[in-house]
């Protein structure tokens, strides 16, 4: 098990008012993402628990691209990874952001 945490500053808060959302499942090749609107509006934190060690730089790149694209200010994101591929992680993050905006 590897734990990773990435903190970013955003230019704006994530739109919408939904306090929390959850998407995905912890299955092989998949992941579960919990989003909570609990941080200051210009902060985003992503905490990852993954069974696959050694992919720190890939997670860092995926999270940085997501933050740049979605600007999820105010949101803390917790990821329970089941060995998902980076494209699946990106997709789930965007799906999570969309749920919060609803």
């Amino acid at each position: 098990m590897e734990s990773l945490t990435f903190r970013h500053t955003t230019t704006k808060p994530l739109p919408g008012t939904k306090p929390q959302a959850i998407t995905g499942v912890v299955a092989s090749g998949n992941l579960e993402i919990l989003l909570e609107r609990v941080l200051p509006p210009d902060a985003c934190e992503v905490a990852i628990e993954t069974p696959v060690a050694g992919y720190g730089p890939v997670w860092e790149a995926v999270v940085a691209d997501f933050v740049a694209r979605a600007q999820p200010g105010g949101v803390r994101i917790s990821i329970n990874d089941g060995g998902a591929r980076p494209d699946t992680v990106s997709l789930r993050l965007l799906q999570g952001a969309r749920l919060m905006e609803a």
Partner: protein
Amino acid sequence: MADWRGERKARDARIEAGRAHANGKVVPAGDAVALLEAVLKPGDRVCLEGDNQKQADCLARALSQCDPGKVHGLHMVQSGIVLPEHLDVFETGIAERLDYSYSGPQGARVAKMLYGGQIKLGAVHTYLELFARYFIDLTPHVALIAGVSADREGNLYTGPNTEDTPTIVEATHFKNGVVVAQVNEIVDKVPRVDIPGDRVDFVVEADTPFFVEPLFTRDPAAMTETQILIAMMAIKGIYAEYGVRRLNHGIGFGTAAIELLLPTYGEKLGLKGEIATHFALNPHPTLIPAIESGWVRQVHCFGSEVGMDRYIRERPDVFFTGADGSLRSNRALCQTAGLYACDMFIGATLQIDLMGHSSTVTQSRVAGFGGAPNMGSDPHGRRHPSDPWMKAGREAQIVGDPALMRGRKLVVQLVETFGDKLVPTFVEKLDAMELAKKIGLELAPVMIYADDVTHIVTEEGIANLLLCRDADDREQAIRGVAGYTEIGRGRDRAKVEELRARGIIRRPEDLGIEPLDADRSLLAARSIKDLVHWSGGLYEPPARFRNW
């Protein structure tokens, strides 16, 4: 004085020796070993029919049980190395040399035996290349083939999986070789004559029906959003863009997803009748919804697929069928159709390097080639124009008089940036190179050469290699769709944006596709059971795909 009939006399002698174990042409399964020991000579070139689907497994077992003192040093020339017996014969010395095409399930053992020196390898061929050599320098002395039934005259019904049989028999029988067929049953009258009896010397009534593998069944339940996104990009960015009507699909989940999106996403884009109307393709179960909703007009098949027989019988306007109603397939002719009469090949691969060479060989497996290298290559013998072919040709910067221009076959690699177990699809150097060095192959087993590939589609976007003008364009176009692999993260970001501005790289948003719309609800069928419903109950999936 020269003897012009030496081969003929030798064949007559072999047949004479075999007759001792036969009643007319018919040999009981229990005497198959004795028959083979009688007709085979040391050093013979032997084609043991191992196709994609159909396997001459009873004859394979018999061959592996022959006495290596009597039968040894054979040169096996066969398209598929599929069954364990296909390799057992090399361990006992019955066989010594090998020329073949495909070894999917036995890929790891082939690699080990090549490395250990138990197999003397001629070459790993593409299908058409091996078939061609059957008629020039790899003509079999003895062919061991498989069919569904035969009559006592040797007239053979191959069933829907005709596959390689006509080609093998043509090369063997008409050049003084001996043809031995295994059949599931001897009947008074065959449903149709696929091989005339005078080309078949012996018929062995097999103890069990021949083995067929459902190779082309992809369960829609296992399709991911990423595969759906890639399929949407391919439909909008390539099928629609070039107006591709005549094509061949690979056997992966990516192309299966495209098949399932035609009646839904394709319909929404108004593309019915404009794309994907004529196929060189095995009867993929995932094609059923597109056929049923009137998208697909015609399909010619390499072989059949388990469970599709009843459906095909009821759709003779779409498939090639015999007077008996069942599918007539033919690998050599369908490969030729895929090569010359299709404007596009689209399929997956395991590894792509920075130039665009691709391979399905990994460090420890020599899987050989399927249909991809023939259909995924630009045929220089083509002369008839079509819109997609001409457009691709123009994009490849044809210079000089347009009337002297060659078009281009669209060869599209559809891949996810990471494969199973987070193995990256994009690599600096193909594993095939390392393997070739290790086992002493002169040529690395490359599935599709870089100069044949026109597009690479991943979940990150489409790279159009036709529009690349130099090696740097090409490398960055590939890196630019390689996602979070090391190759992808090593991109020159400014250059990739330049390529995007030039239309060489196109992202989902450039195509008007929202990645979050890539949802399983877009699939025309979301399970095997849905496919059965679409077929009106005619599709009969094999047990392992039935989970209801």
